[in-house]
């Protein structure tokens, strides 16, 4: 009873699955599975025998096929336009399709403006000077990014902001959470921004401590 069943089951699969050759891909024209037996390379992609264009060769690199598209195609971004748009907070980065960076620029710009408006004594003028500097930073950053895009170079979205992730420590998320907690407490008037501003040098100490941590953790970062 069962031996017959198992025998038939054991006998059935080998004819059904005759050790299939590994499928390399599928014909671009008709979708049939391609193995080494029937694959034809043409114009940088795979076809079956029936649909291969004329003048094909077995080796895809022997033909004068167009080079495969690079991940970052050279765009028609205009560096001059990027510069002028960069004078508007965030817009230069948006022009370069760096939406996260654009949002960050707007947030930083708003932070600088509100800090300059806090009447916090000498720091007020410091932030006042930082604002025009940041405006020109955004403009030149957008221009350089646009030049890289025109040249077809890869553009990392947050390349020029901070070496985040280099040390393996999740700096970005922790900074975000810290900023959120700080803003929430300030909004709910648990803490006073004006009182906190007296402690701004602690930020310098924290920055120095972080730089020490990075250099102690990984010697490759200079």
């Amino acid at each position: 009873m069962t031996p017959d069943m198992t025998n038939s089951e054991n006998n059935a699969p080998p004819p059904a699955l005759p050790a299939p050759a590994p499928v390399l891909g599928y014909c671009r024209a008709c979708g049939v599975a391609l193995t080494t037996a029937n694959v034809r390379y043409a114009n940088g992609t795979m076809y079956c025998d029936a649909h291969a264009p004329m003048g094909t060769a077995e080796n895809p690199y022997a033909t004068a096929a167009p080079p495969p598209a690079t991940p970052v195609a050279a765009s028609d971004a205009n560096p001059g336009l990027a510069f002028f748009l960069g004078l508007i907070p965030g817009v230069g980065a948006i022009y370069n399709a760096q939406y996260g960076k654009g949002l960050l620029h707007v947030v930083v710009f708003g932070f600088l403006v509100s800090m300059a408006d806090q009447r916090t004594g000498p720091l007020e003028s410091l932030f006042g000077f930082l604002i025009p500097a940041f405006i020109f930073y955004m403009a030149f950053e957008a221009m350089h990014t646009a030049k890289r895009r025109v040249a077809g170079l890869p553009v990392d979205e947050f390349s020029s902001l901070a070496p985040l992730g280099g040390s393996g420590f999740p700096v970005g998320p922790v900074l975000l959470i810290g900023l959120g907690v700080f803003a929430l407490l300030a909004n709910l008037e648990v803490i006073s921004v004006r009182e906190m501003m007296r402690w701004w040098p602690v930020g310098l100490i924290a920055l120095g401590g972080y730089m020490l941590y990075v250099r102690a953790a990984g010697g490759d970062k200079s």
Partner: protein
Amino acid sequence: MNQANLFGALRGPVLLIALGVLFVIDQNGGFSFASTWPALIIVFGLFKLLESLAIKNPVGGAQ
């Protein structure tokens, strides 16, 4: 699907829910949205933190 993808997929809906909760509080006389919006930054940062931790040491083995 690994955990980092899971957290990435959850982030949008959870942020939308948090936004709705904040607006409900705003509409019903609690704290105004003008003072509670940083909670959204905290939620976003928590998700990024969970993602980076999941990438660094994946739990469950399945990459």
